[in-house]
């Protein structure tokens, strides 16, 4: 019995040695997602980026991920676990991972951390984000053209700057076409609950909206639009298969190129904490094919997209805040810091911002 035990221990030791030897050759890059990778939305797109890294860097890297990690203090353990397991670079992909990442990054100075959509950085914590609001301006313009009732339904998750920024950009786009355009806003207080999203879409349609916009992650709302013969926009992924007659376009996230460049930087030893905010012109935000709309609307959308690629920012004055006080002067462009901390509505939004 004793012999057997010793033999087992020796094998185990040999195996673990082999494992570390291999780990030294390969760089371990890790991801933490707040949703399931099977959400076909936000987390799914991040995971596609991870797969792109595997494809591009082949046997130089090894990747791992944790999904369904709830935001807030509970996330500490997820990041800590990955850091202990030998991850050299860890990407946290959701706003609510900000404070946990700051905390864990302090504990593991040799591990590189990256946080999406937040605003806190440190020596080994960089931030990255995509300018989804650029796409949302285009959605607003299309919605105002396509809507007969002049009212859009907007399903949102949590009142964080990212979401508020999206609502504002959408409204600015819509008002550029129809100054009286209205959006009814419903908070479902969840990133991911298809049933709730479908219910919210039904409620909004019942109250006279005829276009649905969402800042939640599933295809449910768009399916309701399809069933009712109305229209809407996809989110994160191209959802045209779920709503061939209803989807007008979709803001598609493409994280692949960014992830590849960052993991490469770790491999080359050139990684530095960054603060990047990629937009349509960088290819991180893509618009799915403009469908189910007349040619003139499509042309308008494409023209706006081109203008944004050439450097125009949807948050260019004159813009007033919700209560009518001026925010940006004529021609003034909002700076990134204000946008990333946005906690107020622009004029014309018909909702009280939950605090």
């Amino acid at each position, binding site marked *: 019995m004793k012999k057997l035990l010793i033999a087992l221990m020796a094998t185990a030791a040999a195996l673990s040695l082999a494992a570390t030897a291999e780990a030294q050759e390969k760089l371990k890059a890790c991801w933490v997602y707040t949703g399931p990778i099977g*959400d076909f939305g936000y987390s799914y797109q991040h995971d596609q980026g991870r797969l792109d890294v595997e494809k591009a860097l082949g046997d130089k890297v090894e990747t791992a991920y944790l999904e369904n990690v709830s935001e807030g203090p509970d996330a500490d353990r997820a990041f800590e676990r990955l850091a202990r397991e030998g991850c050299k670079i860890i990407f946290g992909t959701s706003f609510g991972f900000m404070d946990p990442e700051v905390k864990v990054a302090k504990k593991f100075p040799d591990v590189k951390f990256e946080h999406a959509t937040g605003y806190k950085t440190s020596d080994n914590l960089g931030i990255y984000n995509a300018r989804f609001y650029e796409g949302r301006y285009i959605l607003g313009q299309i919605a105002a053209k396509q809507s007969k009732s002049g009212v859009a339904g907007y399903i949102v998750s949590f009142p964080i700057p990212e979401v508020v920024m999206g609502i504002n950009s959408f409204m600015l786009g819509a008002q550029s076409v129809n100054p009286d355009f209205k959006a009814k806003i419903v908070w479902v207080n969840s990133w991911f609950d*298809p049933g709730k999203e479908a219910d919210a879409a039904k409620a909004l349609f019942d109250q006279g*909206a005829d276009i649905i916009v969402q800042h939640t992650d599933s295809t449910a709302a768009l399916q309701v639009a399809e069933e009712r013969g109305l229209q809407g926009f996809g989110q994160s992924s191209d959802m045209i298969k779920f709503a061939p007659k209803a989807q007008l376009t979709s803001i598609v996230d493409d994280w692949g190129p960014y992830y590849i460049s960052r993991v490469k930087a770790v491999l080359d030893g050139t990684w530095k904490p960054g603060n990047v905010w990629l937009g349509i012109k960088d290819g991180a935000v893509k618009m799915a094919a403009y469908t189910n709309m007349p040619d003139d609307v499509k042309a308008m959308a494409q023209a706006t997209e081109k203008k944004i690629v050439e450097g125009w920012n949807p948050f260019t004055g004159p813009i007033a805040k919700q209560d009518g006080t001026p925010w940006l002067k004529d021609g003034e462009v909002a700076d990134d810091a204000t946008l990333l901390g946005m906690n107020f509505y622009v004029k014309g939004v018909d909702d009280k911002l939950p605090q």
Partner: protein
Amino acid sequence: MDITVNILLTIATAATPLLIAAIGELVVERSGVLNLGVEGMMIMGAVGGFGAGYLTGSPWIGLLAAIALGAVFSLLFAVMTLSLATNQVATGLSLTLLGLGLSGMMGTSFVGQPGARLPNLDIPGLTAIPVIGRLLFGQDPIFYISIALTAAVMWFLFKTRTGLTLRSIGDSHTSAHALGIQVIRYRYLSVIFGGACAGLAGGHLSLVYTPQWVENMTAGRGWIALALVVFASWRPWRVLAGAYIFGAVWIGQLHAQAFGIPVPSQLLSSLPYLATIVVLVLISRNKRLTMMNTPASLGQPFVPDR
């Protein structure tokens, strides 16, 4: 008028999966078994229903698959807790965790694929009647099943001899055993029935509510169903009331938000939970009746002496 009908239909869709899963669990708990695996069985039903419907193109086959998968999955719980007398709470929890993980793995290839939706009932002449037509004759098939199921369970538990036996097992398995009742067999059948119901509830999610497969799509509905059973003090009609109050307040608060009522949305989102608990506690305030309805041997493992 149209908007009222639409709201009522939306409430029914939101309440149906809760009602079915809770009615199934009610029978299980009445037999003295506490299965906390409702969420896991439900998600297995959802992935099974979507998968079978997607692969065969027939949502009806999907419906059967959802029921079957829920039942088979609950069998795992039954073998563990009834034959091997493991701890019911721990086993139920692990069933939920296993279900959530396993369904995600099984459903990998279904992500991003549109599935088949169960068609709504459409009876020529009747469905077209204004207002009541769509409410009574135009809903999805699972809605009718849920109502029939509630009525059937009420009748079975309180009007049949077998139902009485089942309740007596839940109250005291040792006495029932002493009377020569086959406790374990009854409990096996109850657990499988509960599993089939949870599976059907999951099938409702992936075949009617939101015809798609995404991981974790049950999003906690199994837990709400479990809570409904307790707060309804193990009475079927109260479970029905609870499920519909929950659905109504939930849909109501969405409309309140869309209407622009200046109440914090976080408070509105928690209203369905609060309202359901308050109402069910109020109707269950008769202590003696509640005691009478609580299965006394709930959650205790039973090992028959031989």
